[in-house]
Structures are given as structure tokens and as C-alpha cells.
């Protein structure tokens, strides 16, 4: 059944979203609000992963409820290497780029939730619908959060730096 396929994709997308949020948090430590909030918001995605894995079992899926999302050592070394080689863009531009990445990734997760919610409604699967009711609003808030920071930071970073 195709709901299972979307759930699997959602799980992968949500994992990537958590990963991106944590990477934003780590890379942009000097931006206090972004550093703290990105970590908090990654926690929401991790909570979703537990829920998706739980529901996945009903659809015959064996999804990891707690997959690795922390930026790995190798990735960190690569980044450090990039920095040393002077290939790292301006920190301000990198921040905008990373926030855009979060927004796009959250949009992807959001559309997955829409598909699942619609299928749940049509198949009168109350548990599945309740899952989307619990999680999808968080995704929209993650998306708006990234967008709001892009809005505020763009003039400063693009014009005054």
C-alpha cells in the first residue's frame, strides 16, 4: 500500500530536517537565537521520528525511531577543511543559505504530511489522522521560523555587510 511508501519517505525527510536544523545550530553558534532555537526545533523532528516509526509498524515498516541526525565527525572535518581552504562563503550568506535549506526541507516534510493526512481522512484511519494533527503544525512552525529569520536578516546581510 502506497501510504507505507510515503511514510518511509517522510521518515527520511524528517531525519534530514532534524539533521539540517542541528547543522544550522552548530555552524551558527555566534547567532544566539538561531543556535538555541534550531536545536529546540530539531527536537520536534526527533519526536516526530519516534511517532512515525511507531505508526510505521502498522504499515509493515521497520523504521528507526532514533536515527543518527547529529552532524557526524567526518562532516565536521569536511567543513573545517572547507573553512581552511578559504572556500567557506561569508558567514552571513552561509546563514541565509542554511536557513533556506531548512525552509525547503520543512516544506518537503509538510507536503508529505498533507499526503498522509488526506489518505488518512479518505480511509477513515483515525489514528493516522491524529498523528498528522499532532505533527504537521510543528512542521509549519519550523518552516515559518526559518522564513522569518530569512526576512529579517536579508537586508542586513545583503546590503550592509
Amino acid at each position, binding site marked *: 500500500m502506497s501510504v507505507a511508501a510515503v511514510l518511509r519517505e517522510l521518515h527520511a525527510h524528517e531525519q534530514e530536517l532534524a539533521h539540517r536544523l542541528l547543522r544550522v545550530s552548530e555552524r551558527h553558534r*555566534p*547567532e*544566539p*537565537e538561531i543556535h*538555541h*532555537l534550531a536545536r*529546540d*526545533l530539531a527536537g520536534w523532528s526527533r519526536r516526530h521520528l519516534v511517532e512515525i516509526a511507531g505508526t510505521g509498524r502498522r504499515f509493515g515498516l521497520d523504521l528507526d525511531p532514533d536515527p543518527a541526525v547529529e552532524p557526524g565527525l567526518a562532516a565536521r572535518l569536511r567543513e573545517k577543511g572547507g573553512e581552511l581552504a578559504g572556500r567557506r562563503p561569508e*558567514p*552571513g550568506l552561509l546563514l541565509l543559505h542554511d536557513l533556506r535549506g531548512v525552509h525547503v526541507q520543512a516544506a518537503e516534510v509538510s507536503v508529505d504530511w498533507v499526503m498522509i493526512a488526506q489518505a488518512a481522512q479518505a480511509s477513515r484511519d483515525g489514528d493516522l489522522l491524529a498523528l498528522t494533527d499532532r505533527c504537521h503544525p510543528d512542521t509549519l*512552525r*519550523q518552516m*515559518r*521560523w526559518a*522564513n*522569518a529569520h530569512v*526576512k*529579517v536578516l536579508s*537586508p*542586513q*546581510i545583503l*546590503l*550592509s*555587510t
Partner: protein
Amino acid sequence: MGKIDRIAEPWGTRTPYGPGQEWPSRVDAFLEEGAAVERWVPSASILHSNGDALDIAVAGGRIVGVRGRADDRVNRGRLGPKDLYGWQAGRSSDRLARPLVRDGDRLVESDWDTAMDRIVRRSKELLDERGPGSIGFYTSGQLFAEEYYTLSVVAHAGVGTNHLDGNTRLCTATAAAALKESFGTDGQPGTYADIDHADVIALFGHNMAETQSVSWARILDRLAGPEPPALVCVDPRPTPVARAATVHLAPLPGTNVALMNGLLHQIIENGHIDREYIDRHVVGFDELAERVKDYPPERAAEICDVPAADIRRAAEVLGTARRLLSTVLQGFYQSHQATAAAVQVNNLHLIRGMLGRPGCGLLQMNGQPTAQNTRECGADGDLPGFRNWANDEHIADLARIWNVEPDALPHYGPPTHAMQILRYAEQGSLGMLWISGTNPAVSLPELARVRSILAQERLFVVVQDIFRTETAELADVVLPAATWGEKTGIFTNADRTVHLSEKAVEPPGEARADLDIFLDYAARMDFRDKDGAPLVKWHDPESAFEAWKECSHGRLCDYSGLSYARLRGPSGVQWPCNDEHPDGTERLYADGGFWSAPDVCESYGRDLVTGTPVEPGEYRALNPGGKAIVKAAAYLPPHEAPDADHPYALITGRTLYHFHTRTKTGRAPQLDAAAPEVWVEVAAADAAARGLAEGDLAEVTTPRGTVHAKVRVTGIREGVLFLPFHYGYWDRAPDGGHDRAANELTLTDWDAASKQPIYKTAAARIALAERGTGPSAAPTTTASAPLAAAGAPTSGGTAALADEQPGGTR
């Protein structure tokens, strides 16, 4: 007339009264020995937010004392210790009297032309090279309304920058944010007179005894009279409020939302709500009822580490109050989840239908004397007149008043908050920061970071102040300002009472009023309106006030019915004051009447967790009819929780005898002597566990730094350390290191919704540095009272004898 040592007895003699009666007068005064007073000049207190009306005594061209005004509704003649003794600071010989400019690693005396030329030249270079976003302003909660309004026009429409905020960000941003979330617009719903009528008074993170001592005297007088109110106190420290409380809840720092949710859970479960009021005036109740289901008293008790029985008892007192007055201050505003917690107090009043009637009041307090004006005039990350930056009609209206094109006013996002302005300075996109009337090198969190930012070669720092502060030492240009008593202007207290403060004496040397400095800058920059006329069309305090009246007209903070002539009459008018309310307005929101309709509201609100502004369309759908908004919030753990390395929660705060960074109170001998040196408050069990005793020198450490302070063992809750934040370095040897200011230890983090920095959750450790030889110098009269007798009680002796006349008229 009696004499009383108001250092030893901060709240003076009791004048008891009962519910619904008028608070009796008591005239307090303190004059220089042998003063032959020539004139009395009307003003109000400038060292806290209570707005006590007073007259300044003048003799021989000098200020020689102060006296409270018996006919004023705010204080009925009373003054607090800071008012009685603090005025002496203005006469200090080390006042800034000439502009200073940087010459290499020194500041040298200069003249106004040279100093202003440097500022104007740098401003123009930056505007040419990098645009208005490269210039920022960081102002105060201690200037006058005319000055904030002028600065607001200069910054927003002259320079065209979005980067203007006040140190009100540190004290009152959450009050404003919480009011906007719940009522759509800033504006204090209640009035101090609600103290006269309430049968329950709840103080949430508000040590009123030390922050607004005259209003606390009003509560003490109710407590000493017939049918006294019950008090509920939320505070981790054994404050005078806690000691007087019927129920005292001392939650772990950072857990206020859990506690509030526990209280609301009980109140809803017990049916202590006003269903009819909710149906008529409120949106969002169902979501709140659902959310607080997760917080039965036992769960809240576990998170906050307070007994569940106490939560039940407090909820019973709050839920059965017939006339409930609540006040909120820094224990909520400067803590984790600040806005979410303060909003829950609004929710308490909304679901109980307790607003806009005598005794049914809500006071989201301010910290500073003129913070209200910073907020109203648009100098604190808001637009003037509570206009909404996200509403194009409001921008067009402001542009019309200032006669500029709407797109000349930056409104691409919310006005930039102070911590973000500082971040722009750190990251290099801000090239000039003009700091007026505040001392961020002692008052902002994580001082090592703040110093390193302000000291950058690439950042041009202007400091406008009355003393050579720690911040001034880092400036490129220092402008000497006039202070209270040396200039004229109005200011508004925390319950919307407007006072005129008149010039009594000349400022020292070449010092100038802040208004004149801003007007001079506008003239030298040649800012113009869209017709080529000067942008700033006023020239003195009264013409500036007239301009501000026009800007406020038709908004909630309407001053249009006031004038200097009117304010020179019987004092103590509360805004809005206009044709409809010619005598002012005691309480807002009687029978609903909120300013929350989508077209009029100041803000569409924010997500309380992520801080994301709510989109206009979203708000319109949520609240089309302009009701009050109940917003629920879940508890989230603080970002820096105690751990094995740093096992204590560190909170910072104030003492009764000092204001901010002691620039004034440290120069008033009686106040300085009452609390001369930093201390750290430790619970007895924690002191024992660490081998610490009263008076030992301790080393308090967080990941950001170390402070040395003498131990005061108090009844503070276990697991919590308290440091007063007043002490900096100006009165210390220059090479004494950086181990005295509490903000060496605080973390750079802020509430996402109000952007108020968090001063009350940091993880710390404490260890013995040196065995003590006597008790610490902490006051014994206040929250820092020792658990066991420690040395002589705090007193001021003959030097602090003040006049006190219960029932007096002058």
C-alpha cells in the same frame, strides 16, 4: 513632623486603611542640612518605575532636597529611599561636563563642534558606503518622552535605520510583548488604585518591596488595616513580599510556565472561571483548557520542585478571589519562557473575567522610570503610538504625520532588538552604535563578549551620559548630558500616570539636555521631509511634546488631551487623555473594549516558542472581532540547566538601595553605605555542603567567567544562587580585573517572543576563595536578610534622617 531613618526603615511608618477607602497621605522629605529652600520645582521619581510625584527643592542654584506631593494619586506624598537620597548624585564633582573624543587609547576633553563633527562625518560615510542598516541606536528607560520621540524620528525617518532599541529590552520588553499577545496592543490594563480594592494580590516574580517601594508601602498599609488582602507570591527568594504572603511558591528558576499551567489547571478544574466573560470577550480558551490538562498539580510540582499542596492552595486563593490584582516583573520577564509565562497571568485574569473593575487589575510592570515612554514613542523596537510595523496603513499614517514617503520608513521586519543590534556590531555589518543613557558594559549579559564588541576598532561608538561609565571608556565620542532636574520633559509610570518634570537647575559645565543633542544631530545631518523642509519641526521640550501629542492622537496611548499647562495643575493624569476622556482613564478594558481588531492592533502576535511573527491573514482569521486572546504554552526545559560541573541555578537581580549600575545610587552616600559591595546569596544547606559560611569570599563560576563575592546565607531556596547585578568597575582600581559584575556570568540567550535577555537561568558552581573575617555587606532589611543574625542591621544613622508627616498635605 517626625524624623525617621529611611535606610533602616525603607517603607516608613504605617498609615493603615481598609478596602475601598482612600489611601491616607504621608509626606516624606529629605533636605540638605540647613537648606534655605527658595523654590520647589515639580517632578517625579527617576530611580524606579513607580512614578512617585515629588517637588525638587532649590537653593542658590543647586538642588538641596526633595519632598513628595500629597495630592498625587500615585504616592500620596510618599517617597522611597532611592528618591530621598539619590538626587545628591547629580551634584557629584565627577559629572561629565565637556565632550570627550578618542585620541588613540585615551579619551581627551574636546568641544561640541569637534565631537558632533566626528559623529556627523562617520554617519555620512556609513550612509554613503553601506546604507542606513550600518547605523544603530541603543537608548534608555530614563530619558523623557520628548527625547525618545525625537530620537525615533531621527532614527526611523532621518537615518532610515530599523536598528533602534532601548535598555527597556532588559527590563520591560516582556511586559509589552505579553500585553500585545493578549490584548493586541501594549498598554497597562490596571491601576495602582486597584491595591485599595483587591481582596487578593498576587505578585509573580515581583519583589515589589524593593522595586516599587512606595506601592509596597500601600500594600503594607492595606495589610495593617481592616479586611486585609491575601497575598500570593512566586519568587525563589525570601523577599519581604514572600514573608508577608499567605502562600509563597518558590519554583526552580526557569519553570514559571509549568507553575502557571498548574495553577490554571486547578482554577479551570475547580470551575473558578467566568464562562460568560469568556464567551463574550475571549478567543482561544478551549486550547488553553486542553493544554493545561497536562499539568495537574503533581506534575507542576515535580517540574518546579514546590509542594503540590501549595499549588492547590494558591489556586484556591486565586480562584476564589472576588477582586484579584496581579503584578508581574523580572522573575518572569528575565527568565526562561518569559513571554509565555507572563501571558499566563493575563490568561488568569481573562478566564476569571477580572479586568477593568476596581480591584480587578493586571499590572505587567516596568523596571525603569520612563520605560513606558520608550515603548510608546517607538524608541524600543516598536513604532510610535503603538503602530503596527506589519500594517501598511499604520506605516502610511506615520509617514503622513512625519511628512515623508512611506517607503522612507524601514518596515521590512520588526524593528531590530538590542541583542540583535549588538550581534550586527559583532559581525561587522553595523559600523556605528550611539548609546544614550545606558551602560551596556555592565548591564548586558556575558560582559566579556560585550566589551570585546564595543572595543572593536571598526565600530564607531558614541556614548551620551552623565558620568564616565564603563561603557564611556570604550567610546570614540562621549557627549555630556543633562539629567533629571536639569531639563524639562514628561514621563509616564507603569500605571500610565503622566508627570511633567521641570528644569530646576543648570546642568554642569557644557552638559546639554538629551533632546538638544538629538536636535543638534538632526540639524547637522540636515534631515529633510518630502517637501524639503526640516524633518524635525520642533525646537524645545514643549514643542516636542505637542508633536508627540499629534502622533499619539487616536491611538490607545492618546496624550492629545494633555498639555504642559494642564500637567502643571493637579498632578497625576493617566492616559488615554483626550476629548472622550478629558480627565484621563483609570482602567483600560472595562467590559472588553480591547484594541485588538486586526486594523487597529499594534501586533499580530508571535509564536511563543519560535518567536515567529504571526501573519496578518492568520491573525485576521483568529481574531476578526477584536477580542482578547488566550494563548496556551507548554513548558520547555531551559537551555542551560544545572549539571554535575555547574550544579546551581544562578539568578541575578536588584536590591532596594541601588538602581541599575549604581552610576547614581553609588554616588549617594546613604545608599552606597547601605549596600557597598557585591555579595552572593546561598541557602544554608548549600553553604554547608560547600563548606561556606557567612562572610566568606566565594568564587562563583559559569562557563563565561568568575565573580568573587562575599557569602550571605539566607532563606533562598536550595539549589539557587543570587547575585545583585549593580556592581561594575567604575569605583574600583583600573587594573582590578573583571570579577565583580554579575553579568560576567550570565549567558547570551533571549526569549524568542519578547527578545528579552535571560538573566535568571544560568548554571553555576561556587567554591570558597578565602575564609571571611566578618559578615558580608549585604543589606539586612530586604530579601538579602541573613538567616541568622549577622553583624549590625542595615541603618543610615543621623545622615539618613528624613522627614515624615503622616496625614500631611505638604
